[in-house]
């Protein structure tokens, strides 16, 4: 993992097309702005992780439990 420190209003470029901007920092919360091409998916990591976890759980489903 590349680790950088940024202050408010500073930003980070990822490749040529993605920019991450630190908009402001208030106490424990940092507001982040992201500029990226339309085809790039941007998600909070927890949602991504929850969907992945639910997929794994879903593979436990057994045909005999499916209502007729």
């Amino acid at each position, binding site marked *: 993992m590349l680790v950088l420190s940024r202050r408010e209003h500073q930003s980070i470029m990822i490749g040529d097309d993605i920019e991450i901007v630190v908009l402001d920092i208030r106490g424990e919360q940092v507001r982040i702005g992201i500029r990226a091409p339309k085809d790039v998916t941007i998600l909070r990591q927890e949602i991504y992780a929850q*969907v992945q976890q639910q997929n794994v759980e879903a593979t436990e489903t057994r045909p005999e*439990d*499916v*209502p*007729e």
Partner: protein
Amino acid sequence: MTVETRRFGTIEFEEEDVLLFPEGILGFEECTRYVVLKHGEGSPFFWLQSLDRPEVAFLVADPAGFEPEYSPEMPPGVAQLLRLDETTPRLVYAILSIPHGKPEQMTANLAGPIVVNVTERLACQVVVEDGEWSTKHPVFEGAGGTEPSAATAA
């Protein structure tokens, strides 16, 4: 062509039946090829059976059957990945989870629907960001207050 599966034994399929997930499904990125199996004649349930790993299969159904309000916004990039334009026929499925022996507790992952380009047999799992829909949406009447629909608990 045939494939061995854990749940259904040996199944036969044609190459044109294969559904391709170019990016796989979250947690199963290496599984890109699936066939869709009916659970039973007239059943609203289907199985997405992986052709890459015989033990991997997902029970799915059209969420319109139990959640008519469900119409999540497609994130940008999905249309491009699936080669969809306004007129392309598409299907939306939700992956279902049933705790062992408790069909009445079936839930649908409405935060991560499967979108299918029917014509080109391309599909992906979309993560819906708006937070309105849950990964564990109850399918039957219960805490969520959803009416039972085409399927009823055994």
